[in-house]
């Protein structure tokens, strides 16, 4: 790979706390290597801001290898930036050229209120999981792991759905701020496995109810969520959620 350095202009959303109105600020950043990750570029900017006596930009990040789901950032009109199947922490600066202007915004959705600058509160996702995103099995009473064979294709599909990292890019990208891809992925993961079937009906119903309560919008199948999902979670999972939900609604005993 050819490496190069670049100078950039960053327009970043700054907001002191949830109550603050917030605004954009423009920062020049110089001598950014094409080998840096996007967050390392922000690190450089933050070091510069601290030295100038200014407040650094607050942003969520942790593993920096694309799996923890903590990083967010809506970059130039796309969650996680321009690359397919990618998180912000794995976006590298070779995606940009000298002189580029990059606009960075936080995830926008009522259900994801801004905490500070580019950090948002995604605890709504935890509460959706609390509503039923699990298999109720206490520690210690499991049967042998090979007691129940699971068709490989089903297991693979369940894994593909379970690969969701809970970053919220689907919500950020959706024009309706819908969380259906997130919920669909979890419902699918568990519905595809025999272990998940005893709670199948209540899970779909309760998770959707919680999702609605959190203030996410409804799904209109535009596909934007799938396009920006770092893990390539398929919107087929949404169709499956719709199916699970109605089957539950129509066949519940009570």
């Amino acid at each position: 790979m050819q490496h190069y350095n670049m100078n950039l202009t960053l327009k970043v959303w700054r907001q002191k706390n949830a109550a603050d109105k917030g605004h954009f600020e423009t920062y020049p950043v110089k001598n950014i290597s094409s080998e840096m990750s996007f967050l390392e570029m922000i690190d450089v900017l933050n070091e510069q801001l601290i030295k100038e006596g200014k407040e650094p930009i607050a942003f969520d990040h942790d593993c920096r290898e694309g799996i923890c789901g903590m990083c967010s950032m809506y970059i130039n009109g796309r969650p996680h930036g321009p690359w397919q199947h990618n998180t912000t922490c794995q976006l590298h600066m070779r995606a940009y050229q000298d002189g580029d202007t990059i606009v960075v915004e936080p995830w926008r959705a009522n259900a994801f209120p801004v905490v500070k600058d580019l950090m948002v509160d995604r605890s709504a996702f935890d509460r959706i999981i609390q509503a039923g995103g699990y298999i109720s099995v206490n520690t210690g009473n499991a049967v042998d792991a090979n007691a129940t064979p699971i068709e490989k294709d089903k297991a693979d599909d369940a894994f593909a759905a379970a690969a969701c990292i809970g970053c919220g890019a689907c919500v950020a990208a959706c024009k309706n701020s819908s969380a259906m891809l997130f919920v669909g992925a979890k419902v699918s993961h568990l519905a595809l496995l025999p272990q998940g079937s005893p709670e199948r009906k209540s899970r779909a119903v309760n998770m959707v109810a919680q999702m609605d309560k959190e203030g996410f919008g409804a799904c209109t199948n535009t596909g934007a969520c799938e396009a920006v999902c770092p893990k390539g979670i398929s919107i087929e999972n949404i169709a499956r959620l719709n199916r699970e939900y109605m089957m539950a609604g129509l066949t519940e005993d009570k």
Partner: protein
Amino acid sequence: MKWSELFTSSVGKKWIMGLTGIFLVLFLIVHVGLNACIFAMDGGVMFNKAAHFMGSNAVPRILEIGLFAGILLHIVQGWSLELSNRAARKKGYAIPMGNKGSKWYSRSMGLLGTLLFLFLVMHIAHFWVPSRITGLDPVLIDGKEFHNLYGEMLQLFQGNLLVVILYVLGCFALAWHLLHGFQSAFRTLGLTNNRYLILVEGAGALFSILVPLVFALMPISMYMGWIK
């Protein structure tokens, strides 16, 4: 789960959109099929007979009530969803996502639907009101008297460029609306999986182009004088 949740939850609301949507798709098949009778080049005989059957037989008349209910439900529910979906993001982005990840018509179902609604008001005023309420001129076919709906069409479209353009635009709105709506309805109803996806998408695309095209050809043909 309460029964009401089937209609009030986000997924339930979408199910109603999907069900009414597919019902309207079925109606379009009937509608386009009947109207295509004008291409029989028989001076509207076949078309007027078909229209007469639809207007006088009890079954289509009952279905018509269902049709209006379905359209109404589709519209009201659609608007309600559009409003609540818009409200889910009070503070928007400075740089919109645009077409990065979705098609413009997928994002514009509310707008396209509203245009179709306006078209529908005009369309009902043009044809449904005269045939059911204010009355149409009679025409004799095989010695029997029929309503001359065909004549009404000719009269409307011949030499009336503005109306023809409005109808063609309506067909465009319909095409875009269907292009998203057809496959979306199947997804919403949970009727797709990877195996059927190509089938649903293919059929949807074909339907969304073919049906509006046939509809659009009607005013155009009459205006151009291809059928008389």
